């Protein structure tokens, strides 16, 4: 099952907080798509997910300086 989270309107620390809480609710093997801004969220959200043992499957730029991240729990 694939979940989706848009954190482009969030600011630090809620960018990380929302991703962490969403991943905590999901089952192992489920995927989460995260739409995020460049800068702080793009630099730190993928890294923090990998540190927690989740896999970042893709990280693609979209329109308007945003990125779409695909994470598997």
């Amino acid at each position, binding site marked *: 099952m694939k979940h989706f989270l848009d954190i482009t*309107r*969030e*600011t*630090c*620390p*809620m960018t*990380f*907080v929302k*991703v*962490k*809480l969403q*991943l*905590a609710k999901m089952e*192992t093997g489920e995927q989460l798509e995260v739409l995020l801004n460049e800068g702080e969220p793009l630099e*730190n959200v993928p890294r*923090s997910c990998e*540190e*927690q*043992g*989740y896999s970042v499957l893709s990280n693609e730029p979209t329109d308007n300086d945003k990125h779409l991240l695909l994470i598997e*729990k």
Partner: protein
Amino acid sequence: MNLPVDKKKISIVCFSGDFDKMVAAFTVATGAAATNREVTMFFTFWGLNALKKKKGRVATGNSLMARAFNFLMGGINNLPLSRLNFFGASPILMTKMMKDHNVATLPELVEAAHALGIRIVACEMAMKILEVEKRDMIEEVESVVGVATFLNESENSHIIFI
């Protein structure tokens, strides 16, 4: 949730009961917890006001002095801004500015801290002075501890004093 291999630890001493400093403490705490750190928040002295179950001004305690102090300090809704407080108007204005800029407000940060499982402990000595009991605190207060317990448990942590 996957168990991280080597989780970094942070302990935050929340001494100040100022609104802005409490926002800073909860911002660091939630940011740290969300980025794979084990976080403990140790509330002492003025910081205890943020943990009171009653969020407004209540004369908690037995002695006249304690009741007066607790009433005047109030709870989390009465935390003053450390500068330019203007008799309590500024924290309300600041909260509006935070909302306008999509920045998490203090109640949202506190809620996030609880959801992230941040460990909340209260200082035994400060509670004794102010005659505040554990039953006067929010239920998320895990335990009431002394400084020795706090230091033992924070031995491999970064300690931040706010």
